[in-house]
């Protein structure tokens, strides 16, 4: 990596409104966030708080109504379709509640997919995909298709896929939402380990308090606004009080 940026993600007065007939839904309404390189940040908020909308904006999947998003100090509203595709392929790894693996491809092929778009050579793609699947504990499931894997295993494949191009940031939208508590905790701990070991910035959305004690910071989102932000120290104090 040539340049090291202090902030991987910055949002400035970020807003997204949806018109629903005569109403306007303010999914996001003036969000200012700065996420440091290497941080693990949880976005907490009830359903409808705007977590997915925030991820769509940060991930370059949709355009904001107002405000700006900077990824590694680049204003992504200035990017054209080609540059955005490149950003999604190289800078951002996505993890979803529903795993979203490509059903007709094997685990190995799913992990190789982002590297195809990034123009990585075939031998290197295979080597790296294997290595990542081994890292997430699926070295013996390389040729299984998503339907032949459990939810937890599918999410591990998705994590390996998100890491394929060594992104600056991983956006995980309720990654444990479809998993039982134990499997969910395993996934969260894996994400935390990868965050420490690779220095990849991780932002994860959740509405489950049990999933946040690995976080460096917690951003509480409600009705499209940041309600408050807690740091690691404060989380530890709270945990002791219980």
């Amino acid at each position: 990596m040539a340049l090291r940026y202090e902030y991987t993600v910055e949002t400035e007065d970020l807003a997204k409104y949806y018109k629903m007939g005569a109403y306007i839904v303010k999914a996001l309404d003036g969000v200012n966030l700065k996420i440091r390189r290497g941080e693990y940040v949880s976005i907490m908020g009830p359903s409808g708080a705007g977590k997915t909308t925030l991820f769509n904006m940060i991930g370059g999947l949709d355009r904001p109504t107002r405000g700006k998003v900077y990824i590694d100090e680049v204003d992504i509203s200035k990017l054209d379709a080609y540059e955005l595709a490149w950003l999604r392929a190289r800078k951002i790894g996505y993890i979803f509640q529903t795993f979203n693996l490509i059903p007709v491809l094997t685990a190995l092929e799913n992990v190789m997919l982002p590297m195809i778009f990034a123009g990585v050579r075939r031998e290197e793609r295979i080597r790296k995909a294997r290595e990542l699947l081994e890292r997430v504990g699926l070295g013996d499931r390389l040729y299984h298709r998503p339907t032949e894997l459990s939810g937890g295993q599918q999410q591990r494949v998705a994590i390996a896929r998100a890491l394929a191009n060594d992104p600056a940031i991983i956006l995980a939208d309720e990654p444990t939402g479809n998993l039982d508590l134990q499997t969910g905790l395993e996934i969260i701990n894996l994400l935390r380990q990868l965050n420490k070991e690779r220095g990849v910035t991780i932002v994860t959305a959740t509405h489950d308090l049990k999933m946040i004690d690995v976080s460096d910071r917690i951003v509480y989102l409600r009705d499209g606004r940041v309600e408050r932000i807690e740091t690691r120290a404060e989380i530890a104090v709270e945990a002791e009080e219980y």
Partner: protein
Amino acid sequence: MASVEVGEVRLPLSEAIYISLQNVRRRFARVAITTASVTLGIAFFVSLMMMASFQAQVGGAGVQPYMYWLLFISLLVCGVGITNSMLIAVAERYKEIGTYKCLGALDRHILEMFLIEAILVGGIGGLAGYVIGLVAAVIYAVANPSVGLQGALAALVKPNPAVPLAGALPVAVGLFVLGVGIAVLLSLIATIYPAYYAARLNPAEALRYEI
């Protein structure tokens, strides 16, 4: 503020073909529905042309002008069937399309994947349609004493100038080339709109979609 040094984003044709092939193999039930539309259209086309050629062989009426109109309409109906079926295939894959875009796919990569699938569907449907059409025509010949198996075989190896575009080739070969060719072309044309629609999907919207 920093600016990006954008590298390339690509989907080599070989990879696009591989993914489309997997889609055809793994989603066989869905693909079979789309293919059925092509198969029926081509079977009708091939059998009608063959039966007319058999008639001509034994001094009958041969290809009548109204048949072209009939064939045109039947292929049109078949094309609409493909479009309809492909639109459903796109709707079923909203989330997948959104995911491809997250992984770096450009609009044209999505377009490419669906068009390659259309070529495969057209090819398979055309082949199946030809075989069914041929079998139907031969059954017709055998059941019809004025033609008979002999008459049918004689007609199949002889060119019939009344067959459009491929009139110089022996009927069996000409209709094979024409049948599969029309099937692929028809499938491609009928898939342009669904594929374009899929390619233009906004990834955030596509991912929101719950099936």
